[in-house]
């Protein structure tokens, strides 16, 4: 009987212990819930905890000695060390500034930046992000133009003069709300010139056409000749006049450009795809498709792998005319002074005996011509609210930018490395250019030493003159050879994101238009379908977009 009593006591003890352990295990699960709301507030200071090899130091002592900034502007690969060459040089030169680099893997940049912001460690300077999206989320700081002019006077003067020269206000596009600046203004010299068109002039000579076609009729004759008369002499009917890369110049010949807002004669904006010129151009393309002059596989891009800017179809002798990629992919091989010339070099490699020539966009029946051209204005980095609110620190940073963007030697050092080691001054055609050392020629190498956009907001900036020198002979060549044939349609609306309803309608409307145009060109639909397509476009959101575009444009 004593045993039975003992067993009962044991049982009760066992059950109690089980319950105690169960509750303890459950509570240990709950211990994972902690309130870390304080985390966000503590990182308003300038020492974020997500940087590599961090020992958090109190901000008071740093600010008394030096200005500390965290940078996440962009990179093409990892940095060589925590303090790369260029950063060390700049800190040495400026004296009272300290830069801390935050490395983000480029393939998932947006996601990682979102994490950094969500975790409360937003970098002070943030680049290569969607500035409009950040503005809408209200996480970036803003300042007024006067403050910028006071802190960065030389920078501002350059913006003013360039804006006047090109008739496009560089300040206005940075003011997302119309009043205060949200990002750094700048210009991009590459966009001073429109896209070019190129012809296989060896084929034209072979066919008896001794002059590069200038009007649309001349171009049409050349297309038919190329398609039907076997210019490459291989006995096979495998050459076509043109493919999709040429479309921009054809639309340009009729006074419009696809996927752009065009200014009408009364000052209002219309979407390029909806204009009468687009209908005429499409009818023309449909006729060429039916006659076999337009590449039947035009739906596929002209590029078939490798470097994106290479028109494989043109370089392999399938078509005789193209306007693919940008002008700087087609400039001649200038040797070490090359800006890019990707298309040219590939062409030379594939056609050692062939030649091509840069032509002019063909003149249409109403005297219009042109290809696509990007807006010369550029948006730069954005800044966190904590940086902008600290006026003293922000002003110092703007002063740093003022120096780095206007002083010639510093501009190139900041972009490329140490003079003499990583780059040096050279000459092209009697003018000064910058030549890059061959051990520093790839973007990944330049980013590793801290060059490219690591401190500064972008590769470019306000000074077109410095950019001209930086990019070697290509710009000089363009100024000499392209200025007279520079016919470009520029999108009157700076970016789709300025239209509030863009996110809602753009992708559907784009699909509607793309499919519609292709079906008319291939003959699936008659040309009359164009009118229905345009009215559908207006009905399904185009009308809203047009109104918003006009409102925005009238504000500029």
């Amino acid at each position, binding site marked *: 009987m004593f045993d039975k009593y003992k067993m009962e006591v044991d049982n009760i003890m066992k059950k109690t212990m*089980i319950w105690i352990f169960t509750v303890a295990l459950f509570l240990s699960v709950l211990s994972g819930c902690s309130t870390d709301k304080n985390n966000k507030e503590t990182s308003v200071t300038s020492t974020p905890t997500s940087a590599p090899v961090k020992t958090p130091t109190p901000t008071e002592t740093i600010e008394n000695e030096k200005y500390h900034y965290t940078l996440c502007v962009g990179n093409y690969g990892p*940095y060589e060390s925590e303090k790369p060459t260029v950063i060390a040089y700049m800190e040495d030169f400026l004296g009272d500034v300290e830069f801390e680099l935050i490395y*983000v893997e480029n393939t998932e940049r947006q996601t990682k930046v979102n994490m950094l912001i969500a975790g409360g460690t937003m970098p002070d300077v943030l680049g290569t992000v969607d500035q409009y999206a950040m503005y809408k989320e209200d996480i970036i700081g803003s300042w007024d133009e006067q403050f910028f002019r006071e802190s960065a006077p030389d920078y501002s003067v350059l913006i003013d003069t360039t804006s006047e020269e090109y008739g496009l206000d560089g300040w206005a596009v940075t003011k997302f709300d119309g009043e205060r600046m949200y990002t750094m203004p700048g210009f991009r010299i590459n966009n001073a010139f429109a896209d070019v068109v190129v012809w296989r002039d060896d084929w034209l000579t072979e066919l008896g056409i001794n002059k590069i076609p200038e009007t649309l009729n001349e171009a049409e004759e050349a297309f038919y000749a190329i398609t039907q008369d076997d210019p490459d002499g291989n006995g096979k009917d495998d050459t076509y006049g043109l493919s999709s890369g040429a479309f921009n110049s054809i639309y340009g010949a009729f006074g419009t450009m696809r996927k752009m807002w065009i200014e009408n004669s009364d000052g209002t904006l219309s979407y390029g795809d909806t204009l009468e010129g687009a209908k005429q151009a499409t009818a023309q393309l449909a006729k060429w498709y039916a006659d076999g002059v337009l590449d039947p596989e035009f739906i596929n891009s002209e590029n078939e792998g490798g470097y994106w800017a290479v028109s494989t179809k043109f370089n392999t002798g399938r078509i005789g005319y193209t306007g693919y990629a940008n002008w700087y992919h087609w400039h001649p091989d200038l040797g070490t002074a090359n800006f890019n010339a990707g298309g040219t070099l590939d062409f030379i490699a594939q056609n050692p005996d062939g030649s091509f020539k840069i032509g002019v966009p063909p003149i249409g029946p109403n005297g219009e011509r042109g290809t696509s051209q990007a807006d010369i204005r550029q948006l730069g980095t954005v800044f966190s609210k904590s940086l902008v609110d600290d006026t003293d620190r922000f002003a110092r940073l703007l002063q740093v930018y003022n120096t780095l963007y206007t002083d010639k030697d510093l501009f190139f050092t900041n972009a490329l490395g140490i003079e003499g080691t990583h780059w040096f001054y050279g000459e092209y055609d009697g003018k000064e250019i910058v030549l890059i050392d061959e051990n520093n020629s790839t973007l990944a190498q330049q980013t590793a030493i801290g060059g490219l956009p690591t401190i500064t907001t972008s590769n470019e900036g306000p000074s077109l003159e410095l950019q001209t020198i930086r990019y070697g002979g290509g710009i000089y060549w363009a100024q000499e050879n392209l200025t007279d044939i520079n016919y470009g349609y520029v999108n009157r609306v700076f970016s789709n994101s300025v239209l509030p309803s863009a996110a809602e309608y753009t992708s559907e409307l784009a699909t509607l238009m793309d499919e519609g145009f292709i079906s008319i060109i291939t003959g699936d639909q008659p040309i009359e379908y164009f009118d229905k397509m345009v009215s559908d476009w207006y009905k399904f959101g185009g009308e809203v977009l047009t109104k918003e575009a006009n409102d925005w444009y009238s504000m500029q």
Partner: protein
Amino acid sequence: MVNKNNIGSRIFDLCNIVMMFTFCLSILYPFWNVLMVSLNDPSAGNLTGLSLLPKKFTLENYKNVLSYPEIWNGYRETIIRTVFGTCATMLFTTTSAYALAQHDLPNRKFWTVIVLIPMFFSGGLIPSYLNVKSLGLIDSRMSLILPGLVSIYNLIIMRNYIMTLPKELRESAWIDGSNEFTTCFRIIIPLSVPILATVSLWTLVGHWNAWFDAIIYINDANKMPLQVVLRRIVMEGSSQMLNQIKAEDFGSIYPTAIKNASIYICTIPILCVYPFIQKYFVKGILIGSLKG
């Protein structure tokens, strides 16, 4: 055995085999093509279209990629992560599965439900990031191992397997005087080799292929695992060999060959491990564990 002599079943077999063979070829051919492009010397001309053999055999592409120090960093990180991660996962998963499989675990149903609920939903990306951040694991190798340490799916599979083992095993072990740990590690685990091999292989491959968590949680470029480096090379073309402002050297360095060589360098190790583990899948038959 089914009589296979009539013409109908023979035709069926033939069609079956042909279809399966074509299907296998269509899966294997891309691997073969990638390998051939990586072994091809680009100065002899690039391989386009369907091709079975390289135009000119060379190992230059592989030498190029292996000379790239970030690949070796990536290997180190991935091997550390795979080895420690898989060991830790197996330890915790097997012990938990063993516990959950025993019918006399107190409040067993309650714990099973608690364990099952997170299998159906998770907090999302940003809450996970905040969680790891508040644990102080950002930029640490543990952030790649700890958050996904025990996969509930694997846990349930293992638990179910252990539940199929007769409970007399445990009772006879208890009679012979062993405690829970000895029973688990000396008796049950050796009998579960097939399921252990399966789960460890899944975990191993998962760790080897993982890249997204590294991008999110790790800030130091030197600690990026192999797949992140591969992704950088293949998707972005951003490496000291590939990305060029001046698009020259089209003849000597063909970017696609470099990318393909990188793909194989990152995949060959795991392809080698797979066959060795596979032989354990078919073992583990209970013979002679219960006498009398």
